[in-house]
């Protein structure tokens, strides 16, 4: 019988992009059990939010995550606006949505490069990160920043789109769509990539539901669930889009779902730019937020992001709870790794699109 060992990986390890502690109990080449230790980038943000005014808190939630910063402020702003009972100008909702989708494209392309690299297909990493620059350029033109765009504010958005931008963005979207189609062909036909991801990290539909998994990870296991359609926010009710699903439940299916989502996002942005309503982009907001409690949900690139906000009528929130999608998906990782090859660990872990800073807060 092969020898049983415990292999510790992390919190600092060349294979990890962010600090996370793993302990794998293995027998020969097979993983028997996985223990995950988080908290290495826990910054106490939920507590810190209680000690800040709402507007200061807005800038802090933007920094929960370096990749999907806009989705955090979207969730927070929506919650506060609901407490205020505010009506947001339609143009602002459209701009919010456009930035949300640009962010999704940038996040998915970033991830596609990471999974390519983990699968030993470094060229894919080079290609997707080059194309990701196109999205980052658009975001920089719109907001002035490549990341942490600070587009959202209570009552609307801080920036407006110029007619020159509205005209120039679709041309670059055409390029991204063309590239996404190319990647879709590539990841499903490239022998190396398919061999490394097909059947790897399998999660059945039932297990996915039991572990309360979210986002592209659960959609790749055949569960048709997306906050943008089920609980529409911003301008999503007015945009036509398909919720992408797959049934295979492996790392390859998760890749295909994400690439197809890029194509859907491109179409949504194009539609939103074409139908951008005229008018104001923000309304004035009172500093004091009326007492109450709200739940704000959005579909982050990695899945359902949920904010619970409680106000006691003062200038500071009484409680803000943030649950990032990675925390929801991480619970299923030990299950996906049961019986996996040691060599497949990086792919299984990367396939859920980890964002540790988000999960730790």
């Amino acid at each position, binding site marked *: 019988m092969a020898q049983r060992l415990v292999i510790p990986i992390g919190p600092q390890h060349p294979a990890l992009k962010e600090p996370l502690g793993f302990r794998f109990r293995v027998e020969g080449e097979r993983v028997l059990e996985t223990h995950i230790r988080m908290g290495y980038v826990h910054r106490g943000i*939920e507590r810190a939010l209680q000690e800040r005014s709402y507007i200061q808190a807005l800038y802090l939630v933007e920094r929960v995550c370096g990749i999907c910063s806009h989705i955090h402020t979207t969730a927070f702003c929506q919650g506060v606006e609901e407490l205020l009972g505010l009506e947001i100008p339609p143009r602002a909702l459209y701009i919010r949505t456009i930035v949300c989708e640009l962010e999704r494209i940038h996040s998915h392309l970033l991830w596609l490069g990471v999974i390519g690299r983990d699968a030993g297909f470094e060229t894919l990493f080079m290609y997707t990160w080059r194309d990701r620059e196109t999205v980052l350029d658009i975001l920089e033109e719109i907001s002035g920043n490549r990341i942490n765009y600070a587009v959202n504010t209570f009552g609307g958005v801080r920036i407006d789109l110029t007619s020159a931008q509205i005209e120039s963005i679709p041309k670059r979207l055409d390029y991204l769509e063309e590239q996404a189609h190319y990647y879709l062909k590539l990841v499903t036909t490239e022998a190396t990539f398919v061999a490394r991801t097909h059947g790897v990290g399998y999660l059945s539909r039932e297990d996915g539901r039991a*572990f309360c998994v979210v986002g592209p990870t659960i959609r790749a296991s055949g569960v048709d669930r997306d906050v943008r359609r089920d609980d529409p926010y911003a301008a999503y009710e007015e945009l036509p889009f398909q919720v992408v699903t797959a049934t295979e439940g492996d790392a390859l299916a998760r890749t295909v779902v994400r690439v197809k989502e890029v194509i859907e996002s491109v179409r949504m942005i194009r539609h939103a730019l074409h139908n951008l309503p005229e008018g104001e982009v923000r309304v004035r907001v009172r500093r004091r937020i009326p007492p109450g409690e709200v*739940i704000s949900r959005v579909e982050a690139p990695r899945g*359902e992001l*949920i904010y619970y906000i409680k106000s006691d009528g003062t200038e500071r929130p009484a*409680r803000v709870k943030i649950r990032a999608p990675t925390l929801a998906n991480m*619970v299923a990782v030990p299950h996906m790794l049961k019986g996996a090859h040691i060599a497949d660990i990086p792919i299984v872990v990367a396939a859920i699109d980890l964002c540790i800073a988000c999960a730790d*807060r």
Partner: protein
Amino acid sequence: MPARTLLKKLKGVLGEHIGQAWVPRPHRAFFSVRRDELHDVVEALVNRFDIKHLSTITGVDTGEELELLYHFWDYDVCFTVKITLPREKPCIKTLTDIVPGALFYEREVHDLLGVEFEEHPDLSPLVLPDGWEEGHPLLKDWSPP
């Protein structure tokens, strides 16, 4: 289905288990249950209504007591089951036997508010450092060491 319809459906089966209930807007519902009935109520949600998605557990220290809010997702409705616990030695039976997705959420509430989850398989620290003895940072009376 609208939140009101869902709540009505749940009330039809769970009846007196559901305490105060309110629907602030079409996609949201809240109701409170007694803490010793939480496990049975969630078991019914999972087994009889096929509502399995627990989005997260929020712990709130109101100063007088601790509130735990269990947020569930059923198609287009996000509904919250609310229970209250005493601030002294808060303790509740784990849900991990019926909702495996609660594993990390309960550990986090244990870290930050000190709630004990009976029969939880592993309540080791999730976000706080090993050997942390400076209390539970989300309690109102906590101050940084």
